């Protein structure tokens, strides 16, 4: 092995400053990953506090005030500090330039700036927690949010700042996909994860400014009483909901599209099979990103919208459902006549298909206006979006981490423990959230610190399994990081799953500081398992 092979982005250059001022997309990705995981654990801890309070009907562990703070911070941290920044920021950053054969993203300095803007915004969120929390719900509905004495301003300011990081990362990724591909890597030869990041980035740069404006208006309302949302001054609190969901519904696609991308990589590689319906998956990513802008009103079916708006929003909502459904069938058919290996990433991908299908189908219930009126703001909605966000996005994220872990960091985790933890996540997740569908159907409202006796059985069941879920996620993540400590290194030439995209075939594990020793030459498409045999090589 040459001296040059031993040099990788993790060990060269050395020193703390070389990390803090790094322009290397892989190092920035790793920093996003670590901070994202920390916020994930913090948000998860808050979720467990809530679940344990809800094990019994009364105020048994915490008061209403603390509960309201816990659920607000859980939502805000998970969405704004973990899910939205973490997948594009961590996996996207590490993989996008490698997948298109580039030395780095288009604007490396901007990339570092994005990370620091995110960190700066996160400081405001942490200040909010230390200074006594915020109790408005992550949605900050007016007029409650303009009247609440909790830390609404620091939290919204934090979200406002993090929004810029999101916009700049999106911009950077779009420029990278357009301009940094190696010759011959045409649009239809791009790995589908790149398509997914591209679609995500388009939504990030177009939707996030609306969130920023909404947060500014909310702050102005609090400071200056400009009256845009205040009925006493001729404003309208429902206008806030329109603004908020005009961002936050597309934000659902910022959260789920990268997960679609991850699944589109894991399934063909671990099935050694050309992906089913490449073009359909690619285009549906873009069309879902677009249609996502037109359905925000389905969050407001009980707000008193006109009957006509209700009908139109219900109608358009189904146009997101159908392409998503066809995607699920495409992923499943990819396994047809393949050679499927039951590896940890594949287990997560199969878990994703199971859980996300439930998440998607329950969305159809909520899209039917008449039924949504009963289910709106109940636990049915809580269960639905957790099946999409956690069962979908976070399970895909864990799968992606297991898939690219040996590539990104040159170490291999214990695969048996990884499989057991994946099973624990799957069972614990269903145990926690499936009963919540029933709770919602039976009329249990969300955001309740205490509840009626009739709901106790399902709630305690949900709480029990949430413990298993929490422990399993902790084990899954610790098992990954333990491979660093154990120094269970893989050979730099390893391609343990037999991946076909550039990051597997043309660079070492972990990659060289400049990604490739020479500009890669494209030899085959991303999923040409019908044309080329790529051996699985995994040497310690």
């Amino acid at each position, binding site marked *: 092995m040459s001296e040059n092979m031993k040099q990788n982005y993790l060990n060269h250059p050395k020193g703390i400053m070389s990390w803090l001022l790094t322009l290397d997309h892989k190092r920035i990705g790793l920093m996003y990953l670590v901070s994202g995981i920390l916020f994930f654990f913090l948000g998860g801890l808050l979720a467990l506090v809530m679940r344990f309070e809800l094990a019994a009907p009364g105020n048994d562990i915490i008061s209403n005030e603390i509960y309201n703070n816990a659920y607000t911070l859980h939502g805000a941290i998970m969405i704004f500090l973990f899910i939205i920044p973490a997948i594009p920021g961590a996996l996207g950053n590490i993989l996008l330039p490698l997948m298109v054969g580039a030395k780095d993203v288009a604007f490396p300095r901007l990339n570092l700036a994005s990370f620091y803007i995110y960190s700066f915004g996160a400081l405001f969120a942490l200040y909010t927690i230390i200074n006594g929390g915020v109790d408005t719900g992550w949605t900050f509905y007016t007029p409650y949010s303009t009247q609440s004495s909790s830390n609404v301003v620091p939290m919204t300011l934090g979200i406002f700042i993090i929004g810029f990081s999101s916009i700049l990362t999106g911009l950077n990724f779009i420029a990278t996909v357009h301009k940094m591909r190696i010759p011959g890597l045409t649009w239809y030869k791009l790995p589908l994860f790149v398509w997914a990041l591209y679609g995500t980035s388009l939504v990030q740069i177009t939707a996030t400014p609306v969130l920023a404006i909404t947060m500014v208006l909310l702050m102005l309302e609090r400071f200056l009483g400009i009256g845009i949302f205040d009925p006493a001054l001729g404003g309208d609190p429902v206008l806030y909901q329109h603004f908020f969901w005009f961002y936050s519904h597309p934000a659902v696609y910022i959260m789920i599209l990268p997960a679609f991308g991850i699944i589109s990589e894991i399934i063909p590689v671990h099935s050694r099979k*050309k992906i089913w319906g490449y073009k359909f998956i690619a285009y549906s990513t873009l069309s879902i990103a677009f249609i996502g802008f037109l359905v925000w009103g389905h969050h407001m079916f009980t707000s008193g919208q006109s009957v006509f708006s209700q009908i139109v929003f219900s109608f358009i909502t189904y146009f997101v459902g159908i392409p998503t459904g066809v995607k699920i069938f495409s992923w499943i058919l990819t396994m047809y006549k393949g050679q499927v290996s039951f590896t940890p990433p594949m287990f997560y991908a199969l878990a994703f298909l199971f859980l996300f299908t439930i998440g998607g189908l329950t969305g159809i219930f909520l899209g039917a206006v008449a039924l949504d009126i009963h289910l709106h703001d109940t636990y049915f909605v809580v269960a639905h979006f957790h099946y999409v966000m956690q069962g979908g996005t976070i399970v895909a994220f864990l799968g992606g981490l297991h898939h690219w872990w040996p590539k990104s960091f040159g170490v291999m985790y214990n695969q048996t423990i990884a499989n057991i933890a994946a099973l624990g996540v799957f069972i614990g997740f269903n145990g926690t959230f499936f009963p919540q569908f029933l709770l919602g159907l039976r009329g249990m409202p969300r955001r309740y610190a205490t509840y009626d006796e009739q709901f106790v059985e399902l709630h305690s069941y949900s709480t029990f399994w949430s413990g298993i879920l929490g422990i399993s996620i902790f084990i899954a993540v610790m098992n990954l990081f333990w491979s660093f400590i154990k120094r269970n290194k893989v050979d730099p030439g390893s391609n343990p799953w037999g991946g076909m995209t550039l990051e597997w075939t043309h660079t070492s594990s972990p990659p060289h500081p400049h990604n490739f020793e020479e500009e890669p030459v494209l030899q085959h498409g991303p999923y040409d398992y019908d044309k080329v045999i790529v051996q*699985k090589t995994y040497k310690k």
Partner: protein
Amino acid sequence: MLDRLTEFFFPKQVSTYASDIDSLYFFIFYSSVVLFFIVVFGMVYLSIKYRHRKGEELKLTSSKDHSNLLESMFFIIPLILVSITFVWGIRSYLKMVIVPDDAIEIKVTGQSWFWTFDYPDGGTTLNELVVPSNKPVKLVLSSKDVLHSFFIPVMRSKMDCLPNRYNIMWFDATKEGVYDIFCTEYCGTGHSQMGAKVIVMQPAQYEEWASELGSEDDDLPLDELGAKLYTKKACNTCHTLDGSALVGPSYLQTSQMWGQERVFDDGTSTVIDDNYIRSSILEPMTQIVAGYQGVMPTYQGLLSDRELDALIAFLKTLNEDSQI
């Protein structure tokens, strides 16, 4: 069989349109179960059938990556199912929004954290909505402060209460009984305690009740009336009788401190007496007890003088140690 399933998934069906909505639910439910079964079966079957067996060599796999027949099926079948769902959803929805002309109209006001109901023939109730059975009831909803949402699970209906606009909902209750009402739009500390009951009566019984509304309590002794008002006017949402602090101080504590100084959050203090209790009910925000948040709404206009006297009398009876 279907009745059993309905009971398993849903609360009772009490409105005329409830069974319609439950049927829509079961249509989507069964379609989803079939689609879900296809997905899981396909996933398990394909992954096991085409698994990479131990010792088997890696080979070039099939280049099949599309099938026009299959894909059009995946497109057309869900399209048919969601089209039915959409149309059904809208048809049922129209039943929920078109209010019959002969509906009696009750005004519902949400306020942190209780509900007020104003009846057509005069009279007001708190946290108890009384309606006749088999007669359409139109609710005109609004809020006095932040957003609330008025949810009656057995009717399958809910509607947000806004501070600047009236929203409408209606139902025709088919079964007498007492059912839950929940607030489903987060409204702060007391959100999860902002429950109420809807009492569905026989029409004749309702008429009788409505005509007596407001007058029935005239004969009660003051302290008994106070005890009744304590729950009826939703004092119990925030004030306990056992000494434990909820959103506001416990009545027991106030009673035990009768004649003593009470300290407020601005450092001032006053002696607890009849006038203090009266002003703290009518102008709660002027003197906020130290250690508590100033969140109580005013009861100005919601309580008569006799009712105020009754609450004060009730509060005094709580302290058994001293005879005031």
